[in-house]
């Protein structure tokens, strides 16, 4: 992924085509321990509903806090062995519940009891922890009327092809999911977004239930939801707003497949499909229980991780690097990428030299050269007011081309995070 010799033209990052990767996914055995995350900082003094030693069944809904709607779905049968704190990005911590797996698997039946008549409440109450992490949050906001549902049969990041694989291999179940979604959400339009290579294989999705098919370009970042809003839907999202504000809700193909499978079988899908990107950029599809430590996946697929390597949850442009192989597979882990220490590209503390590469590559026309000067100085409000911080769709291309190797994308995410804390801090004061 180096700069081409002819630097006059804009560098183009292409999504890889899926041809030749339609092999059977590698199935990972049920792990000995499975871990789940719950949002919010956790300390041992907190009163929690889950007790150490408590027995849980596969598919059982687990709540950690009394006054919270948040829940996770247990991916295995076993006993709760540990509740601890886990440190994530920007110093945000969350609670991690570890379950020791029992020898025999039992399925929880509480979802089966209600799944005969699909409704939005049932989906919201049981399925957000399912594979693909279907999110129904935007349907509960009375101010947002969701008219359109977009099913993404494509992954937003390069090299990742989890959803493309699912769209091509599970089109029947996705079609079922689409019709259920349409029924329970009363959305008037369902759009299936597919890359060109998949139109032949997966074009049948939703055919019977009347979904529209749209083709996604092959050039990164055309599969990012906000770029799709502009290019495919023709409705650019105003700065600081989300697709939900425009009446559009995005579901990954896997999420829709989970909805379809759950209401058909009466069991919440707890097996996640993901793309494993090895150090040499070869890729393999993997099916693993949610909560599986990624170390188990590396062992099964013959990946050795050594000191100073980099493990990335997600793709090379927008993923998140993690500091331990114990990190579990979560419902939205679409890819795991391993980078050998010799391939790790480092950032530098050089200032911007004003070469303008970032300005020319930015898909949203943001004056990145000016923006980054304000962000470096910590002047986040000015950056947002004058230099379009909130127009950023977080594709990471500016950092990719930066001659000074500045961590521009990190500055942008940090600025957005700091700005998002201001209203919360004001409430506390």
């Amino acid at each position, binding site marked *: 992924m180096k700069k081409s010799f002819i*630097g006059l033209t804009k560098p183009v990052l292409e999504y890889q085509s899926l041809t030749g990767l339609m092999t059977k996914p590698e199935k990972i055995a049920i792990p000995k321990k499975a871990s789940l995350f719950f949002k919010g900082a956790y300390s041992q003094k907190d009163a929690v509903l889950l007790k150490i030693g408590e027995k849980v069944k596969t598919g059982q809904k687990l709540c950690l806090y009394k006054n919270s709607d948040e829940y996770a779905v247990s991916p295995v049968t076993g006993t709760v062995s540990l509740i601890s704190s886990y440190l994530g990005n920007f110093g945000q911590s969350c609670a991690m519940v570890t379950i020791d797996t029992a020898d025999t698997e039992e399925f929880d039946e509480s979802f089966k009891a209600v799944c005969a008549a699909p409704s939005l409440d049932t989906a919201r109450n049981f399925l957000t922890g399912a594979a693909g992490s279907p999110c129904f949050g935007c349907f509960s906001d009375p101010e947002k009327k969701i008219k359109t549902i977009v099913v993404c049969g494509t992954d937003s990041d390069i090299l990742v092809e989890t959803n493309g694989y699912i769209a091509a291999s599970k089109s029947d179940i996705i079609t079922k999911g689409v019709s259920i979604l349409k029924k329970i959400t009363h959305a008037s339009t369902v759009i299936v977004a597919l890359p060109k290579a998949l139109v032949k294989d997966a074009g049948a999705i939703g055919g019977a239930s009347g979904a529209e098919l749209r083709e996604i370009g092959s050039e990164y970042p055309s599969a990012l939801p906000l770029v799709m809003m502009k290019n495919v839907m023709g409705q*650019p999202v105003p700065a600081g707003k989300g697709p939900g504000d425009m009446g559009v809700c995005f579901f990954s193909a896997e999420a829709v497949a989970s909805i379809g499978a759950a209401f058909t079988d009466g069991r919440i899908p707890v097996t996640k499909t993901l793309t494993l990107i090895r150090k040499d950029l070869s890729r393999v599809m993997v099916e693993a229980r949610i909560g599986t430590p990624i170390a188990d996946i590396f062992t099964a697929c013959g990946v050795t991780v050594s000191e100073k390597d980099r493990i990335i949850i*997600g793709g090379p442009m927008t993923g998140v690097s993690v500091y331990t192989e114990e990190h579990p597979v979560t419902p939205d882990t679409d890819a795991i990428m391993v980078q050998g220490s010799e391939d790790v590209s480092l950032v530098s503390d050089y200032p911007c030299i004003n070469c303008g590469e970032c300005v020319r590559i930015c898909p949203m026309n943001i004056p990145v050269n000016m923006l980054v000067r304000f962000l470096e100085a910590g002047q986040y409000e000015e950056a947002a007011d004058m230099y379009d911080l909130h127009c950023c769709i977080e594709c990471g291309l500016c950092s990719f081309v930066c001659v000074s190797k500045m961590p521009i994308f*990190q500055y942008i995410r940090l600025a957005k995070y700091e700005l998002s804390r201001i209203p919360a801090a004001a409430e506390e004061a």
Partner: protein
Amino acid sequence: MFVDKKLIVSHAPFWHNGSCIGERNYHIMLAALPAIIFGIMQYGSAAIGVISLAISSAMLWELAFNRAAKRPDSIGDGSAAVVGMVLGMMLPATAPWWLVIVGTFVAIVIGKQVYGGIGANPFNPAIVGLAILSLSWGKFMDFDAALVNYDFGFTAVYPLQLVKHASKNPEIFNVADVVNSFKIMDLLMGKQVGGIGAVFGLGIIVGGIYLIIRGFIRWEISLSFIVGVILTALLFQASDPTRYACPMFHLLTGYTLLAAFFIATEDSSSPVNFIPMLLYGAGMGMMTVLIRNIGAYADGIIYAVLIMNVANPLLDKIRPKAIGKAV
């Protein structure tokens, strides 16, 4: 529970296209080599001395300032070397050693480092250095006087100075005749008097095209600068051919080509958006010919560059609306 294996953790993106500042600057130096080698062949060992001293003293000034200001050493990135090289290219081969060292001091320390170093300089550092030198020690910068002892085998007169003189004395000279005494081909092939690296037009153009193709400089600036020079010169010539030189003459003499590919395109002091780049280049070309034709100086590059550098932040406000911006 965590195994003691330390992994590298950093923020996305996890790929980089591999470009770096050093690569950029070393390619700029590479592109300047044809012009410099020609200059050395034409002016002999004195030119090697000036160019080498300019590059090395610029780097040493940078190092000295880094140390004095307790900043990390930045001489490895090639930026100081490029500034020294461009300044050296504009000097006559006979420039005394102290002139070169003072020039690079002004360029590196006053032109660049006091603003915060690379990327922060509002003016092109080499031009700042040259401006101070030509204001303070003008006689050393007078190419006719400096190169009087050379025997080139062609008219050893600084073309711009001659034309300036002719246009001031229209009763004696006709500018058109003076200009015609220089063959365009000779000017292009470097058979003229001028700065070490500024005379070999063909070499500079080849180097500039290389930089444009490799994406190290922005073609919009170079092209619009040349168009600006040609159009303005054409208008002047049309108004009075006996007093003003033709566009090709302006293009191939003085620092014009050097400015088009090595000076105007300096990253920090030039705009990055499309329309501002065109305005910046065209404005600089226009100012150059204006100063040459009706100003006091023989070559207008120095002040044209400085003036457009000042205009750069304002010009760069002309930019496309960000997608999704509310207003």
